[in-house]
């Protein structure tokens, strides 16, 4: 449905948005804005003008650091992150730290891949100006107690920014009640097209922030010496947006709604649980919390004696695609003392046949590298 919407748009409705007075342009604009409203309903945003479309979640997180951080943080202020953050929620803050002299602190990751709420509270007692965390780890599948973390952050007086990339496609979001100040995620992880990221922000904050990128669409009036800004959300959407993909995102949301996120979650969790059992039976190490309730459909593992890269290539040759490496979470990998992992992730489109293929590939890989009966590699 997404692909059909995209081709349909290019074939019949393609015109630049927000700019033209001609009919096609108006139609395109309406389609793009309808998508935004649909997304607002899907994630429980109080209104569509607080949903900003970016290129990807990385850009959303950079927007927070640049547009909020630059204006409201000064030298000596602290920002609290976690050791399990994706690089996109670490590097922008490091860039700001170099520029502004802010201090970065990190909630440590426990050996089982979780965050200790006691340590979170202690670090929040130091009164950081902003607390940002990932709701679900993309690297090892830990589901963090997001509601509780947001509550603790707000109680400590911090601005709270949540990386919801792995949450939004699998768990219902109700931004109104979640209580965070900023939430970032992306379309392509939730059946949508690539090139679409989302930043939701609390309206008062977004109004107070300075623009991110400057140019067309985000302005109201431009003279040679100054310009005034357009209203939300356009203030943060400079230039021609990725409007075709914005339109194509709508059907993805419809599809997810029709099936139901709870159903999807139950489905992928069942598959992930079986995958974990298979791995453990073959002597592989599965990372992340043991408790299934604290896990997502992501299964990150290591086969003792084998580097993830070799596992990935071996699986690939057996027709199974898994991701390998540090998953853009090098600090997390360092803390857990592994150079990287192999990661299988399950979603609504996976089924038992994928599990069978996974099982075959796993056994074949172990056998090939001679790890059965311990003719294991060095280290």
């Amino acid at each position, binding site marked *: 449905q997404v692909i059909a919407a995209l081709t349909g748009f290019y074939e019949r409705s393609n015109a630049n948005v927000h700019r033209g007075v001609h009919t096609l342009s108006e139609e395109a604009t309406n389609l793009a804005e309808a998508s935004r409203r649909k997304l607002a309903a899907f994630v429980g945003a109080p209104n569509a003008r607080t949903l900003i479309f970016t290129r990807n979640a990385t850009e959303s997180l950079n927007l927070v650091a640049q547009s909020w951080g630059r204006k409201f943080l000064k030298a000596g202020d602290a920002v609290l992150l976690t050791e399990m953050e994706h690089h996109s929620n670490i590097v922008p803050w490091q860039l700001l730290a170099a520029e502004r002299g802010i201090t970065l602190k990190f909630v440590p990751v426990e050996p089982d891949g979780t965050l200790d709420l006691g340590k979170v509270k202690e670090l929040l007692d130091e009164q950081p100006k902003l607390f940002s965390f990932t709701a679900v780890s993309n690297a090892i599948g830990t589901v963090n107690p997001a509601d509780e973390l947001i509550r603790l952050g707000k109680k400590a007086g911090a601005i709270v920014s949540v990386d919801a990339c792995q949450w939004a496609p699998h768990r219902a979001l109700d931004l109104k009640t979640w209580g965070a100040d900023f939430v970032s995620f992306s379309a392509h992880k939730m059946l949508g097209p690539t090139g679409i990221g989302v930043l939701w922000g609390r309206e008062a904050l977004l109004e107070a922030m300075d623009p991110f990128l400057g140019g067309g669409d985000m302005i109201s009036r431009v003279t040679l010496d100054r310009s005034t800004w357009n209203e939300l959300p356009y203030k943060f959407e400079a230039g021609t947006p990725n409007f075709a993909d914005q339109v194509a995102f709508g059907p993805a949301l419809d599809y997810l709604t029709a099936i139901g996120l709870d159903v999807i979650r139950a489905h992928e969790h069942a598959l992930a649980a079986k995958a974990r059992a298979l791995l453990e039976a073959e002597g592989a190490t599965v990372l992340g919390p043991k408790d299934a309730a604290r896990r997502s459909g992501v299964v990150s593992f290591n086969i003792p004696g084998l*580097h993830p890269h*070799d596992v990935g290539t071996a699986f690939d040759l057996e*027709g199974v695609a898994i991701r390998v490496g540090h998953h853009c979470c090098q600090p997390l*990998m360092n803390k857990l003392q592994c*150079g*990287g992992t192999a990661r299988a992730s399950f979603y609504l489109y996976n089924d038992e046949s994928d599990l069978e293929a996974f099982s075959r590939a796993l056994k*074949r890989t172990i056998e*090939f590298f*001679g790890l059965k009966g311990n003719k294991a590699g060095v280290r």
Partner: protein
Amino acid sequence: MEGDAELQDLYREVLLDYFRSSTRKGRLDPADLRAHGINPVCGDELEITAQLKDGKVAKLRYAGHGCVISQASAAMMAEALEGADIAKAKDLVAAFKRLMLENAPLASLPEELEPLASLEGVRKFPLRVKCATLGWNTVMQGFEEKAQ
């Protein structure tokens, strides 16, 4: 099984032997040459240390962790370069890189690099070529820093 044949092509027995061997594994101290290389994409890491004497690579060691390809290739590099004149060592690095990056024919491999023919299969996996060249790039870095 198709996958099998390809796996075997990529991970030939000789590669696995080099991966498992501990000959020339370790760290030299003191060292005349010391270089550190990483593959940011996957976390392969290698530290190369060498002692140079009378214009030759007297001793060379590699240490680190990573995939079969990166570690086996580093082991082969250490074997090929140890004992060679520095100039010859640099030529060998260039020859190996030509094999990996420019698809040079196997026949063009100097005889000191004969075991490296087992890495020929890696060329079909562009993303793994970086694994194969890591140790070689790292030792080259070491030579260049020495020259400065």
